[in-house]
């Protein structure tokens, strides 16, 4: 027999024994299911994890995690567990369960199972070692799978929320025929500035707007790239045949705009939103008159 063949056979034998040890392990865990599960649920409560859930819920969750855990150990595939972890995260995240809790309970389960192995094989140290050799990598991988599944789910939720906030952050409102208002509140970062431009230019086209009042009363400050972007947006709007009136500039923003040397001939600015709307109405040829005044006029 050549050396390579020997090596291959040895590796095969090792794999074989790892598999058989895992099988032994799994049958042990199946036998002890009720007791170990109980123990684990007790530890979870003791460690004050999953406080957002009731005892019954914890027990029910513990049961299904336990079964999935053993199954992953048995089959050596993690897809089912991954799907389960994602599903679990989806259910528990809205209830305020934190990452450390999820990681904590999986590690607790790992420890509970390891303890039970210690107890079972305490007579035979070598065997215990071999069993742990098979158990530990699989257990660590399971812990990693569940933790990653949870974090991924969290990130997905965060991304969705960011998307939602972004969509809410730049409303385009039509207040009169041909007149749009864009009230901006909060800090404008480059990403939001880009979105603002897009919304504004698209809004002009779809609403056939002639005048747009861009109210930045709620914006505390802007940096010069964003200020430049704003000026460019105003110019682009002009190319579409619309006039942009910027209102509510804070002293800090005025300073930034002066610093970047904005051409004031191109920027139409009015002190506050009311003034901006009045100016826009004047440009559109509207005149708002109190009812009493019109009534007083001779017919």
């Amino acid at each position, binding site marked *: 027999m050549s050396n390579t063949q020997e090596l291959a056979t040895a590796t095969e034998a090792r794999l074989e024994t790892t598999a058989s040890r895992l099988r032994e392990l799994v049958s042990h865990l199946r036998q002890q299911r009720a007791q170990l599960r109980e123990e684990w649920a007790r530890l979870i409560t003791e460690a004050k994890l999953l406080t957002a859930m009731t005892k019954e819920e914890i027990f029910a969750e513990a049961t299904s995690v336990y079964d999935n855990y053993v199954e992953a150990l048995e089959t050596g595939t993690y897809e089912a567990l991954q799907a389960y972890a994602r599903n679990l995260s989806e259910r528990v995240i809205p209830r305020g369960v934190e990452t450390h809790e999820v990681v904590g309970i999986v590690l607790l389960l790992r420890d509970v199972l390891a303890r039970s192995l210690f107890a079972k094989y305490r007579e035979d140290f070598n065997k215990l070692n071999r069993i742990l050799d098979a158990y530990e990598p699989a257990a660590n991988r399971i812990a990693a799978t569940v933790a990653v599944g949870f974090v991924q789910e969290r990130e997905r939720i965060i991304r969705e929320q960011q998307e939602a906030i972004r969509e809410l952050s730049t409303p385009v409102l039509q207040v009169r025929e041909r007149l749009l208002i864009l009230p901006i509140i909060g800090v404008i970062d480059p990403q939001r500035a880009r979105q603002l431009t897009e919304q504004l230019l698209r809004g002009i*086209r779809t609403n056939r707007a002639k005048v747009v009042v861009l109210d930045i009363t709620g914006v505390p400050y802007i940096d010069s790239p964003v200020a430049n972007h704003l000026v460019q947006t105003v110019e682009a709007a002009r190319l579409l045949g619309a006039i942009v009136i910027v209102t509510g500039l804070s002293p800090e923003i005025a300073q930034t705009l002066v610093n970047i040397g904005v051409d004031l001939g191109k920027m139409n600015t009015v002190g506050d939103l009311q003034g901006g709307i009045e100016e826009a109405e004047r440009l559109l040829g509207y005149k708002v008159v109190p009812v009493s005044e019109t009534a007083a006029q001779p017919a």
Partner: protein
Amino acid sequence: MQVPILKQGAYLIATVQSALTDEDLKQLRDALVGQVSKVRARGVIVDVTALDVIDSFATRTLRDVAHMIRLRGAETVIVGIQPEVAFSMVKLGLTLAGVSTSLDLEEGLAYLNRKG
């Protein structure tokens, strides 16, 4: 690709239908500036709705057209610049300063009518 120029009342309307080469642009400029007095037009509308890109040469030519036509006694409006095109033009510093622009053909006609 030649740009058709239509006479509508006192106005000339040139509707660009596909991307233009520099040569096409020059031809459009010469045709518009030449015809504007011939038909005694009071206004010229250049509709660029179909253009996905307006580069520096096109911008300069459009501006030249507007200025030359003003010297010949008429008004020019560029209409139908797409939002994305407008913003990329501005990013490149092409702002068509001193040239009137409108949302679309209808707005352009309304603008010229107001100007009288």
